[in-house]
């Protein structure tokens, strides 16, 4: 088995003179060098044996939990400049379903953490981000896009209000440097920007058993009760860290921001405590299928410098009523949106991934931005950007996948929604 798609593999095609030979995966869509592409990373990793790849691996950073992953049998890939597990022994589908039915543990230390501090911190938040932070209490977290002047998206991120004068922004690994530079260029008044990413490790616990697992290690009073709240100096057994009730899977869960030194201890404690509840370590592969089922956007796919958050269906987080924020004018200039993000259920046999063209009869009406088998739902799903005239739920479209047309139906998002238990 081999890929014929060698053009995009420019930098390592030197060794690939023949059609047959080493084992490479084929990407359905044109491959590009985005660090965000998990499949690309797997592709490159599995290529193996190539000198340039080796160099790339040597240049990649390890998180504090690298040894733990290796011991647990992880398959490591390069992602966002870091060596991370794409899966462990049981595989992506098994990990995905464990998170949906019991619990999973993710090392996401590659994410970036930026701190803005000062008297003008709030004003800067209001200026830089599209969401509104005026009424935010300390101990709350809030999702926001960050726009460029054209109304496109620089990144999507989560803001944690640490104090009246101090906010932590948790940003996508791939955008960390871009975000830092952008904020540094635009920050004003009495405000300071700091990148503390290299000092922080981040672990995500997700799944219906998350709280039960945590109750073995924490005082109930310190466990954040409501979704999108956090406790700053919580004790998880012996480890002090930020514990937030946030996640990227569509399940209940918690994220732990701790020091690099504490990360291995914290990870191992969570693995041990979670064992009786069926907790399994999970990699990037499951992380992507989980967020896809939950219809959560991924930067570089559903969001980009070109795509506005309004087109991506994130108007809720874009407060046009704010006096000003970077991108507000750009959004106004774009006018009413002519394309929007849709959810697609693939009804014929096959999988549509990103960058496949979408058709209504012979007319190209859009492109997919993500797609895969949805392990829990049991069918293939995708998200795409479609011409608004044809984006209504229930419409039947076709997706061109490697020359074959797959039939797809536009469905409501999210594809999967967890059952809410009675809240505290």
């Amino acid at each position, binding site marked *: *088995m*081999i890929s014929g798609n060698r053009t995009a593999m420019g930098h390592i095609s030197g060794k690939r003179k023949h059609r*047959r030979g080493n084992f490479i995966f084929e990407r359905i869509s044109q491959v590009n060098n985005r660090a965000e592409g998990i*499949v690309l990373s797997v592709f490159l990793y599995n290529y193996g044996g190539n000198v340039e790849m080796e160099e790339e691996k040597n240049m990649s950073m390890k998180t504090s939990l690298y040894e733990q992953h290796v011991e647990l049998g992880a398959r490591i890939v390069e992602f966002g400049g870091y060596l991370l597990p794409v899966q462990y022994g049981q595989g992506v589908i098994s990990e995905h379903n464990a998170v949906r039915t019991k619990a999973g543990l993710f090392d996401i230390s590659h994410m970036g953490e930026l701190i803005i501090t000062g008297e003008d911190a709030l004003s800067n938040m209001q200026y830089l981000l599209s969401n509104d932070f005026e009424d935010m209490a300390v101990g709350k977290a809030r999702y926001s896009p960050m726009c460029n002047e054209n109304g496109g998206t620089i990144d999507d991120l989560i803001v944690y209000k640490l104090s009246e004068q101090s906010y932590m922004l948790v940003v996508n690994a791939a955008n960390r440097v871009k975000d830092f530079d952008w904020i540094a260029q635009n920050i004003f008044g009495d405000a300071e920007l700091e990148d503390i990413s290299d000092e922080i490790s981040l672990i995500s616990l997700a799944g219906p058993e998350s709280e039960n697992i945590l109750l073995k290690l924490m005082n109930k009073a310190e466990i954040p009760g409501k979704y999108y709240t956090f406790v700053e100096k919580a004790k998880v057994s012996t480890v002090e860290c930020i514990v937030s009730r946030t996640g990227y899977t569509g399940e209940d869960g918690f994220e732990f921001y701790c020091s690099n030194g504490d990360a291995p201890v914290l990870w191992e404690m969570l693995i041990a405590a979670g064992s009786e509840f069926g907790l399994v370590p999970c990699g990037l592969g499951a992380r992507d299928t989980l967020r896809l089922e939950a219809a959560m956007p991924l930067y570089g796919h559903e969001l980009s410098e070109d795509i506005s958050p309004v087109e991506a269906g994130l108007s809720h987080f874009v407060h046009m009523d704010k006096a000003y924020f970077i991108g507000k004018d750009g959004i106004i200039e774009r006018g009413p949106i002519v394309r929007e993000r849709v959810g697609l259920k693939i009804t014929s046999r096959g999988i549509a991934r990103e960058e496949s063209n979408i058709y209504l009869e012979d007319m190209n009406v859009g492109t997919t931005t993500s797609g895969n088998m949805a392990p829990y739902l049991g069918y293939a799903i995708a998200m795409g950007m479609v011409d608004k005239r044809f984006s209504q739920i229930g419409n039947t479209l076709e997706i061109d996948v490697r020359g074959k047309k797959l039939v797809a139906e536009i469905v409501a998002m999210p594809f999967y929604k967890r059952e809410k238990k009675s809240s505290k």
Partner: protein
Amino acid sequence: MSIVLDDLMYTSSHEWIRFIDKDTVEIGITDFAQHELGDIVFVNLPNVGDELIMGEVFSDVESVKAVSDIYSPITAEVLEVNEALLDNPALLNSLPYDAWLIRAGDVSEKEDLLNKEEYEELIAKEA
């Protein structure tokens, strides 16, 4: 460690071929291949009666991670396709040497195949 069976022949692109009798063969993907692919979710098979051409794609296998084309090591005619894989593609992961993709006959051309030792050497280099 990948399983490699004694009584099969292999290709450098990780297909195995089993000679059922003088003129009939089964073709599948190796343990190494299924391991690299991860959870397989779809298999596309040719039709009975289709011609296989040595060196050309006759099937593809899709996993959560990616799609892989399967190349035929022989020129032959497809006699049977393994329909069980259409409903249960995961068989390729769990039983790669039992989950044949196709049975073919009337073999007219065959490329140079690897034996067990040669294949083991190949995958040792790739791992």
